């Protein structure tokens, strides 16, 4: 076994230390060392996006990043999405109101990806949303209500009238 190294990662605003082998993946640090199991492992091959977190504000697949690469950096996970007053963040409310999840396995990754998408482009077109979440797979919803949820969150963030939450059936 290689030497363990001590790292400090600021996760959802809280600085945490951990002793890690260099080969430890970020997703395992989050789930097993920090006991935050909201970040999921789906494919373990960089395809499904269930493990998406923000690393210094950028959405990344934590199954394909070494924990040690997050040393000194900020990580945001689904556990940190809530507003400071404990209410749901716009993206969480949007998923809840728009039937944007069934089993919920993809949802944390979807919301983290959508968070960065909306930060970079607060008013995306439908095409930009679909393109933007192409690295996140959902086996249940058929995506339509996820797209609608991101449009809802976009309106909410920009302070515009909220679109209808009638589910889309296809």
């Amino acid at each position, binding site marked *: 076994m290689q030497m363990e190294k001590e790292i400090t990662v600021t996760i959802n605003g809280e600085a945490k230390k951990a002793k890690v082998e260099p080969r430890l993946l970020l997703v395992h640090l989050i789930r097993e060392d920090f006991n935050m199991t909201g970040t999921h492992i789906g494919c373990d*091959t*960089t395809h499904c996006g269930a493990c998406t977190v923000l690393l210094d504000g950028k959405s990344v697949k934590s199954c*394909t990043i070494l924990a040690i690469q997050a040393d000194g950096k900020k990580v945001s996970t689904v556990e940190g999405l809530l507003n400071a007053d404990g209410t749901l963040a716009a993206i969480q409310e949007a998923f809840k109101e728009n039937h944007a999840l069934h089993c919920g396995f993809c949802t944390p990754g979807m919301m983290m990806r959508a968070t960065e998408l909306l930060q970079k482009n607060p008013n995306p077109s439908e095409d930009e949303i679909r393109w933007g979440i192409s690295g996140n797979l959902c086996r249940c919803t058929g995506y339509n209500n996820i797209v609608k949820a991101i449009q809802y969150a976009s309106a909410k963030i920009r302070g515009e009238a909220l679109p209808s939450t009638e589910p889309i059936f296809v």
Partner: protein
Amino acid sequence: MIPAAFDYAAPATLNEALALLKKHGDEAKVLAGGHSLIPMMKLRFASPGYLVDINNIPGLSYIKEEGGFLKVGALTREVMLEDSEMIHTKYPIFIDASKLIADAQVRNMGTIGGNIAHGDAANDHPAVMLALRAEVVITGEGGARTVPIDEFFFGFYSTAVQPGEILTEIKIPIPAKGSGGAYHKLERKVGDYATAGVAVQLTIDKGTCTYIGIGLTNVNAIPLRAKRAEDVLKGNKITDALIEQAAQFAAEDCSPSTDLRGDIEYKKALVKVLVKRMIHKAMDRVK
């Protein structure tokens, strides 16, 4: 899937990184975006004993025009190309390619240097760099050397970058007035590697094609420049008949293999179609 054990350092300077690479020789690998290397390590296709993470080295990430070249730092991420106004307006061929690489999360990490240094004919930037006649700056303890892209790819996962060296910059001669370029690949699903891909860069001067570069993705053991196809067009007025001939030569000269993405005949047919389309698209973009 967990990689085999290895040791790791993230030096803060290029010199330290080069010293570590020298010290650990064949055992060591450079870690850039990690989005080719880490998947391979998880599958245990690669098990380097030592990783030199170059992400903490400042000054390796930039896009700038200088001294007649478009210079791209090795650590420049795909997303930086997408976000660059200059790339959108002057080098849309890079946007064509970058948009077709994996997905937003991968493009937040993957670097242009890594995309080339990986030496994989399935990656998209090599064909673009071949079409643009890029030059690759490789730095070792003795200093930097520049390798033309035509001499960069040696074989499967093998390039001109030697143990102890770091790819630091890619230099693209700024195309002359009257130039245009385009890239497209066919993929089975969004984010997939190319079934076949074609990059075309050309210059038209008073109706004559004075520069032509055609690079092919994933239809050969190493990224392939379609030289015979280029020769058909170079120095001539581009006509439909010549485009047809060039596309035919490109299809004849590549050697794809049969795999889950298609058989040889299918991939050659794709190359032929894409060469024609990309020549037209590059001509439409001439400015």
